[in-house]
C-alpha cells in the first residue's frame, strides 16, 4: 500500500509540473463549455429579415409586429419590389424575406385565403430550416388570433408541449455531450499518453524490474486520473447548473456514480491503447481517431442517432459515449432513477469489464 501511495504521489508531480497536461485537464473543459454554450448554438436570436409588404394594411403591420416582437427576428430592410429580394440575399445579412400579398386583410377575411411567402437563405440549411420553422410558428399564432374573432365551422388545434426541455435549450444537449467528451479525453487519452511516456522514457523497464506488481503500476498510473476526471465532471456539472441552468432532476449521487463508471470505461480504453503501442504519438493518434471522433460524431452528441443510416445506427451501439449520454440526459432532465437506466448502465459496466480484462491481459509484464 505504501508503495502504491509513493507511486500516486509521483504521478501527481508529473501532472502538476506539466503545463500542457494542466491546460488540457482544466482549460479544455471550461473552453468547451463556453464555446458550446455561447458560440456554437443552433438557437436563433435577432435574425435579420427583410419584409416586402405589398398590402400595407393594419393586418400586415400587426403580423410583422408580432414577428419582430418575438425576439427571434428583427426587420433589417423594408423592400419595395420583388426585384430587390435577390440582391438583398446576396449581401448576406438577411436570412429570411417575408412577402405579404396586396390586400392581405381583405383576402384573409373575404377570400378566406391569404398566401404569405417565406424566402430563406438556405446556403446554411440548418439555419434556414430553423428560421422557417420559427417564422411559420409565429404566423400560425397570429392566424389563430385573427380567427379567434370569427368562428370557423371546424378547426383542429394542435397543442404543442415540449416535455423535459420546454424552451428547447441547446445546453441540455451539449452539457452531457461536453461532459462525455471531456471524460473521454482526460481518462482515455491522458492515461494512454502517460503510460506510453514511461515506455518511451525507459522508466517503465525500471518499474517492471522493481518488485512492484504490474497491476499496481497500472493502478498507480490511472488512479490520479480517476480522481481528476471526477473533479472535472463536477466542474462541468456546476458550470452547467449555474451558468446555463441545466437542471439535475435525478439523484445527484446516482449521477456521480454513473460519471465514475464512465470514467472507468474511458480509463480501461486508455490502458488498452497503451498496451498496444509504445509511443506517445501513436497513443494520441489512436485516442483521437479511435475514441474522440466516434464520441463526437456517433454518440448522438452532435448528430441525432435516429437520423443516421441504419448501419451507423447499429454501429453506434458499441460507442460507450452513446450510452453515457443517454444516462446523463435521463438522470438530469427526466429525473430517472436506476430502475429506468439500468440497461445502459449494465452495458457500460460490461464494456468496462471487457476492456479492463483485455488490457490487463495485454499489458506486458515481461517486455518481450
Amino acid at each position, binding site marked *: 500500500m*505504501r*508503495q502504491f*501511495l*509513493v*507511486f500516486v*504521489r*509521483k504521478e501527481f*508531480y*508529473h501532472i502538476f*509540473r*506539466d503545463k500542457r497536461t494542466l491546460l488540457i485537464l482544466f482549460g479544455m473543459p471550461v473552453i468547451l463549455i463556453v464555446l458550446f454554450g455561447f458560440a456554437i448554438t443552433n438557437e436563433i436570436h435577432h435574425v435579420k429579415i427583410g419584409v416586402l409588404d405589398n398590402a400595407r394594411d393594419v393586418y400586415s403591420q400587426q403580423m410583422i409586429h408580432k414577428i419582430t416582437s418575438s425576439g427571434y427576428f428583427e426587420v433589417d430592410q423594408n423592400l419595395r419590389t420583388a426585384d430587390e429580394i435577390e440582391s438583398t440575399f446576396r449581401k448576406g445579412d438577411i436570412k429570411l424575406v417575408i412577402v405579404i400579398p396586396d390586400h392581405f386583410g381583405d383576402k384573409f377575411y373575404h377570400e378566406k385565403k391569404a398566401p404569405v411567402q417565406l424566402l430563406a437563405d438556405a446556403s446554411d440549411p440548418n439555419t434556414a430550416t430553423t428560421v422557417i420553422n420559427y417564422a411559420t410558428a409565429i404566423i400560425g399564432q397570429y392566424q389563430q388570433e385573427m380567427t379567434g374573432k370569427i368562428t370557423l365551422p371546424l378547426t383542429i388545434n394542435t397543442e404543442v408541449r415540449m416535455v423535459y426541455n420546454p424552451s428547447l435549450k441547446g445546453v441540455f444537449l451539449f452539457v452531457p455531450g461536453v461532459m462525455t467528451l471531456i471524460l473521454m479525453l482526460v481518462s482515455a487519452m491522458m492515461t494512454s499518453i502517460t503510460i506510453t511516456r514511461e515506455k518511451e*522514457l*525507459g*522508466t517503465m*523497464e*525500471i*518499474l*517492471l*524490474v*522493481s*518488485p*512492484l506488481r504490474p497491476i499496481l503500476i497500472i493502478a498507480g498510473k490511472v488512479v490520479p486520473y480517476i480522481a481528476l476526471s471526477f473533479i472535472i465532471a463536477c466542474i462541468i456539472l456546476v458550470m452547467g447548473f449555474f451558468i446555463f441552468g441545466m437542471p439535475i432532476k435525478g439523484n445527484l449521487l446516482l449521477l456521480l456514480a454513473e460519471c465514475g463508471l464512465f470514467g472507468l470505461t474511458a480509463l480501461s480504453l486508455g490502458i488498452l491503447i497503451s498496451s498496444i503501442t509504445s509511443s506517445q504519438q501513436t497513443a494520441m493518434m489512436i485516442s483521437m481517431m479511435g475514441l474522440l471522433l466516434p464520441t463526437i460524431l456517433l454518440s448522438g452528441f452532435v448528430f441525432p442517432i435516429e437520423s443516421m443510416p441504419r448501419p451507423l445506427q447499429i454501429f453506434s451501439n458499441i460507442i460507450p459515449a452513446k450510452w453515457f449520454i443517454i444516462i446523463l440526459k435521463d438522470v438530469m432532465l427526466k429525473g430517472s432513477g436506476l430502475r429506468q437506466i439500468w440497461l445502459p448502465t449494465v452495458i457500460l459496466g460490461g464494456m468496462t469489464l471487457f476492456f479492463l480484462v483485455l488490457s490487463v491481459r495485454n499489458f506486458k509484464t*515481461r*517486455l*518481450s
Partner: protein
Amino acid sequence: MKNYAIVTKELTKRFGDFIATNAITFEVEQGEIFGFLGANGAGKTTAMRMLCGLLKPSSGEAKVAGFDVYTQTEKVKQSIGYMSQKFSLYEDLTVKENIRFYGGIYGLSNQQIKDKTHALLQQLNMEKEAGHLVSSLPLGWKQKLSFSIAVIHDPSIVFLDEPTGGVDPITRRQFWDLIYEAADRGVTIFVTTHYMDEAEYCNRISIMVDGKIKALDTPKKLKEQFNADSMNDVFLQLARAKS
C-alpha cells in the same frame, strides 16, 4: 563450493525462428564485477532481461541470487538492482523526489529513505542539487545518480546495461569508482559495455557472438589466450571470426 550470485545453464531465448540467446552457460561469483561484452545484436540485452525477470526464457535454467527466474521472479526482483541504457530517472522530479520514489517502490521505510538520501547525496557530493529538477543536471551526474538509485535498496546483484554511453572519460572513471565501492561492499556487478577500456576494469568478462558465449575469463587470461595486447584486439578477433 563457491557462492554464486548468478548461475545459468543452457539458457536460451527464441523469438520465432530467431535465436537471440543460444544455450549460454556461465556462473558469476558473489561480489564479482562481471563484464558482459558483445557486438550490437549479439544477445546481451536479451540475456540480461531474462536474468532480471523481464523476459521468460524459452529453455534452460537460471538462478539469480539463489532464486529461480521462472518461478521466483518476485524474489529475484527484490534482490536485484537495474540500470538500463536508457536514462531512467524522472526528469520532471527533483533529485530528492527521485530518490524517495525509487526507495518507496522498493519498500524502504521513511527513515531508511531519509538516511539513504543523506548518505547518497553526500557520496555524490550533490547536497546542493537535492532540490533541483533532474532535467537540469549534466548527463554524467544523472548517470551517477541513476546508479546510486539502482542500488538504493542494497540489492545483492546490480545489472548495468551500457551504463556509461555518451559520457566523457573523466565521468566514466568516476562512475567506475562508484562501481568499485559497491563491489567492495559485496554487491555483484553484472555490466554490459562497448568500451574496451572498461572491460579491463572487470574481474572476469564474457564475450558473446551471435547468441553464444565465445570466451569467458579474466581480461589477462583472455589476452594471453588470443595473443593480444588489449581487450580491443581480443574482441575484434572474436567478432571478425564470425564474418
